């Protein structure tokens, strides 16, 4: 089972996403901020990371920079709440493969995950 690190401080959104991804067959570790995401990634190996940009303690763009240093092969997708805010460019520059603008459908996210994991 592929392991996904999910970091998002919006509790309801994150819980729904975790449930949907579990149902799609992924093992999801949910954390609430960028610092916890980095600490989890130091201790565990993940196949993929999904990060919100706007998070407390450490924002998503800087979390991507650190996660890609820990595991340069890790595919990372970020979420931005504001289209055209520059988050997409910053995320990609930091090493993310894709930045999705919220709201997005679970089907859209699953398609991106499968593409990233070559499934």
């Amino acid at each position, binding site marked *: 089972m592929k392991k996904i690190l999910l970091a998002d401080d919006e509790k309801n959104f994150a819980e729904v996403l975790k449930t949907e991804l579990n149902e799609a067959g992924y093992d999801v570790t949910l954390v609430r901020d960028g610092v916890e995401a*980095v600490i989890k990634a130091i201790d565990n190996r993940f196949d993929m990371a999904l990060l919100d940009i706007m998070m407390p303690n450490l924002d998503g763009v800087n979390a991507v920079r650190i996660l890609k240093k820990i595991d340069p092969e890790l595919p990372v997708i970020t979420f931005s709440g504001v289209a055209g805010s520059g988050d997409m460019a910053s995320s990609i520059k930091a090493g993310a493969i894709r930045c999705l603008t919220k709201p997005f459908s679970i089907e859209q996210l699953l398609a991106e995950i499968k593409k990233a994991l070559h499934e």
Partner: protein
Amino acid sequence: MESILLVEDEDDIGSLLKEELEIHGYRIIWVKNGVDAVLAAMDNKFDILIVDMVIPDLSGINTIRIISKIAPGIAVIACSGMMEKNIMIDSVAAGASVCVNKPFTISQMLSHIRWAVKHKKGQEGEL
């Protein structure tokens, strides 16, 4: 030569500390925020981390938490202009051996460095 990762966003303090510690034989890498500190700690092996508690991008406490995880043997000195009791407790819980109030003299910092290294080696010896 022992190496120090110095995290300080105030230019005058950072440059003075770097210069003085180099004179005393330490190798210094100076960065100005917590994210660059974490990235530097992944690329280099450091003996000592000196970190201000109020820095951009990532707080001093969280910088200590992450770097102590990456480099468990590093001796950590936390500095603050207002080292309140809760900050001290959080710093030590995160991995700091010493909490230092600003301003400090170079001789005080040198003494803190020696103590932090000794304390860290003592901790490792207990494991």
